[in-house]
């Protein structure tokens, strides 16, 4: 069935949260919620899980340690110079190399996973995007069947939406 998208624009956060709770209760699909700031209330109302970015960062950091140590050991073994009777692979100074690589790769994976999970970069903004969402307004995009459109509009209006528009399919 063809689905319709509806955009509600809110001035107040508590109104938006109320709308989100009702929408979730009635099993409407909330496609996106826009906010000028990071909001704990919105994340809680949507029941979002913690971001998987941390796992990517951990993998990056561990791979950085392995790469740092690996590179230092590999290069030392190319020549096997013995200085003052010490082993050609000194572990202590390589901790510094491994540490810096750990941070570097942790950060690179962190950023890559942020972009990947947030679907960035985007060449075009969504058609329904309103520039006020980065300023001082909140927005929610809900998809529903044409028959449920009236009910969704009513919920958004009753929750305190300033405006309700169609937001494409």
């Amino acid at each position, binding site marked *: 069935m063809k689905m319709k998208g509806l955009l509600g624009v809110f001035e107040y956060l508590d109104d938006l949260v109320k709308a989100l709770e009702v929408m979730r209760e009635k099993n409407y699909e909330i496609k996106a919620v826009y906010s000028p*700031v*990071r909001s704990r209330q919105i994340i809680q109302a949507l029941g979002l899980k913690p971001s998987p970015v941390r796992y990517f*960062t951990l993998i990056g950091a561990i791979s950085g340690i392995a790469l740092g140590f690996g590179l230092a050991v590999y290069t030392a073994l190319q020549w096997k110079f013995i200085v003052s009777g010490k082993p050609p692979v000194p572990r202590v100074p390589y901790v510094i190399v491994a540490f810096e690589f750990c941070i570097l790769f*942790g950060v690179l994976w962190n950023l890559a996973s942020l972009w990947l999970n947030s679907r960035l970069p985007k060449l075009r903004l969504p058609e329904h*995007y309103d520039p006020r969402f980065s300023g001082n307004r909140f927005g929610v995009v809900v998809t529903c069947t044409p028959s449920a459109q009236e009910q969704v509009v009513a919920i958004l209006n009753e929750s305190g939406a300033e405006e309700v528009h169609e937001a494409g399919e």
Partner: protein
Amino acid sequence: MQGFSYSEIDDKVLGTLAAPGKVYYVCLAFCFTGVLIGASCWGYQIATGLGAAGVMHPVNWGTYLVNFVFWVGIAHSGTLISAILYLFKAPWRTPLARSAEAMTVFAVSTAGLFPLIHLGRVWIVYWILPYPNQRNLWPNFQSPLVFDVIAISTYLIVSFLFWYTGLVPDLAIVRDRARGIRRRIYGWLSLGWTGSDRQWNHHGSAYLLFAALATPLVISVHSVVSWDFALGIAPGWHSTIFAPYFVAGAIHSGLAMVITLLIPLRRILGLEEILTMKIFDNVAKTIVFTGLIMGYSYLTEFFISWYSGNIAERAIFEWRATGHYALLFWMMVMCNSLAPLVFFLKWARTHIAPLLTISVLINLGMWYERYIIILSSPGHEFDPYSWGLFIGPTWVEYGIMLGSFSLFFFLFLLFAKFLPSVSMSELKEELPPPMRGQSV
């Protein structure tokens, strides 16, 4: 930030991006001229050889290394303010963080030029990088100089990405208010950020992890810089105190530079209501703390040299305090340890003139500190036969130093006019969100 609305914050900060006045262009032209002078001096040095600088046996590390350590130090407080204070949730961090992060990126970029300038043949700089080559020749990963290459490169990349990641939501605000080509440019820079629930959720986690990773990095970077000296056996350098001493010094100079930059900035950009005196009060209190650490470190160095019974150690510290560099040494003590004590007075922490004067003195003192550490030890090693003085700075070194300061201020001026110098999205986060329940 109480008393502001979301729109007022946007208006206030976006107002700083309006067309600049004549004074701005004059400052920009002045700095650009300095950059050209520095570049010409470097060009002259490349053409004639490293002899154009005053580096000669026994003092082979001249002002280039002094400036390198100075700029790395300046870079430190940016990450301290933005990462460490973020983890501690210090509320006075937010208005400062963006400018401090920008300062970090520009200072590390400036610092990174000095090892290149100090190379005789800069066009083969890639030899210090670990890349596969025909003869399997690799850099020595036991060398503190290679640690330095890795640490500084990592710090530059991480600082830049941390700064940029925080900027993205603000760039979207600028995009949404801009028109024409500006809208398109800020659109590209903001990567299509919309502020959706998914984006904020991931951004929050990623930013926190950035801060968590940047915090140990900031400690490690200046420790690594200190090991350039401490892993050598020269008296006055070979000391276990060097890493914490350098980290504290870096934060000390960086905080002073934050004050030096932001006092004129808030005036020029009209940000007095956001960059309040309360914030400078807190920065000044932190400077008192780092200043006390500096004083303690200076005393400890002298005590250890006396207590160790090592003749060469005692000699170098006596020479620093009474010999050729004595004037600079006592200037250093006065600027770094005594002048910040004035900040014990609340009056000094909350008035522009003493804040600016003391912060400039600290910057000067920290430059002297690096000058004394780097130039005195190799000139006064174990054997009196090999003692000597630094014969510079030559006019080439002065020109390059002028160029480095000009480059730093030039980049900062461009930043202040083209990017939001205060984080709008983070300032908004500190406000209570708009609630119908609280509206009149």
